[in-house]
């Protein structure tokens, strides 16, 4: 059994290397000579469109007052809360989302297509609508929340748990889609081999499938985490805004903009830096791992 799993692992690594190789070469070719102008111009425009706003943040940043802006306890409270909640939301998404992805990819049941479409709904739904929906379901007066309140004395709005719920609601579809895609692409023969060797379906999932799809799960987690970190609409609608409890960075930025744009820019820069650092850090690990 252990020999089997290690075999699959090397198989995955090989597959990854194969996948990333040609892609890199293609990028290299495009950077060379012979790029048609009708492609180059819009491409550069797109690049400028995506990067200039971020540059503008740097240009307009109040560098002089930056140290005091950033050392204020309110900023650290909001940043810490953002990181904790996004991580918790990602954990929730992993625990619930991976099994859901497996269900969608590996089983067949009537209406599966519909279920898959519904699962991705929060992706395209405006987050505020998600927040309203959560209020109607899990609010103190919501159809489920009413019971939670009566039976267990649990009320989610205005709590940190509420922030995690709101973030998980908008972030989980990213993980589910990513993992489901990886599961579909993964070779099922390894699972079947494990089954013929006497492994139960759950053991096969745990010992064979999960290691096989680990890169997909990691990619989905990062997407979900980043989405949760930037979540605004559902959070402010469902969880409200209270420093150190439900005020995440995006909320702090939005409210600072109402009266102190400089503070809002400073806060935005912090969020931008954190996002870049995390993406860069993870990208590195992925590259060296493959």
């Amino acid at each position: 059994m252990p020999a089997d799993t290690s075999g699959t692992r090397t198989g995955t690594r090989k597959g990854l290397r194969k996948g990333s190789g040609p892609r890199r070469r293609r990028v290299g070719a495009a950077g060379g000579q012979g790029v048609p102008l009708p492609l180059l111009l819009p491409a550069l425009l797109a690049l400028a469109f995506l990067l200039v706003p971020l540059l503008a943040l740097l240009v307009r940043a109040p560098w002089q007052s930056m140290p005091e802006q950033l050392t204020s306890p309110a900023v650290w409270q909001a940043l810490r809360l953002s990181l904790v909640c996004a991580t918790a939301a990602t954990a929730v998404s992993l625990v619930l989302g991976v099994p859901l992805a497996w269900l969608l990819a590996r089983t067949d049941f009537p209406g599966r297509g519909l279920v898959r479409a519904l699962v991705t709904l929060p992706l395209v739904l405006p987050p505020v609508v998600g927040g309203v929906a959560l209020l109607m379901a899990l609010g103190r007066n919501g159809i489920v929340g009413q019971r939670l309140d009566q039976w267990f004395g649990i009320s989610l709005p205005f709590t940190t748990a509420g922030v995690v719920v709101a973030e998980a609601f908008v972030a989980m579809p990213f993980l589910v889609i990513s993992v489901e895609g990886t599961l579909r692409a993964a070779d099922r023969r390894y699972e079947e081999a494990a089954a013929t060797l006497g492994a139960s379906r759950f053991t096969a999932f745990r010992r064979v499938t999960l290691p096989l799809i680990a890169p997909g799960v990691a990619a989905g987690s990062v997407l979900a985490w980043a989405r949760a970190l930037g979540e605004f609409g559902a959070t402010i609608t469902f969880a409200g805004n209270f420093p150190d409890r439900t005020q995440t960075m995006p909320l702090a930025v939005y409210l600072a903009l109402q009266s102190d744009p400089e503070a809002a820019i400073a806060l935005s820069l912090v969020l931008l830096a954190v996002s870049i650092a995390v993406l860069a850090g993870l990208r590195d690990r992925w590259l060296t791992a493959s």
Partner: protein
Amino acid sequence: MTTRPAHRTRPSRSGCSVRRTPRTRAAGAGAVVLLVLGASTACSSSSDDGSSPARGDTRVSGTVTVFAAASLTESFTTLGERFEKANPGTEVTFSFGGSDGLAAGITSGAPADVFASASPGTMKIVSDAGDATGTPATFVRNRLEIATLPDNPEGVSSLKDLTDAKLKVVLCDREVPCGVAAQTALDAGGLKLTPVSYEQDVRSALTKVALKEADAALVYRTDVRAAGDKVEGVDFPEAAEAVNDYSITLLEDAPNAEAAEAFVAYVRSDGGQRVLADAGFLTS
């Protein structure tokens, strides 16, 4: 161009007015300015074909574009309809929103005729930028009230009752005018209050009570009135210390200054003040 009969059907105003409900307001402040600019451009172009030439010195016509604070939504809509009826050939289009966002739109060149702000500070942004003509006039005032659940199940009767830790109270964030007013009122009573949330504007604070998610909120009297029987209002003496002045002004680059002036005069007239008083505003 022939003169239009007075009873002609008014062109639809829905294409021009930007009505932002409290729920959609959370969607993003950045979009506000764009919305405002986009809407006002559309409105000014529609005024070209929708207006008829002025017929005399006393008659005004054409489109008046009014940027007004969100809390004026209901009363100004009524005022606009009455103004149109009293001045055939005119059309009043509104852009309602947070005062700060509207002020930003005006200072960056949105072609509006009239600006009605919920706070003197926001009006100052516009007049400091040289976009207002003359001195903006205070036309109504608004005071805070406690909004509680219908029938007031928790028996809230004073501001002090809200400091009970058992109650879930929401306040406006201290960055927005209603939050400043709430803090002033609490300071006046020497009270300390820890809410469960600082909401981004007065309407979302009210909504949390209307949805029964919170037990009480400090909002404007007019908001309680607008919410009908979804909430109950409780007056408290400290509110007198935190009265908001609403001011209105004709804008410097008003595309239709004559009609705009008539509209401002109408808002400040006895009839206009009555409509505002009915909505719960304090008139002088």
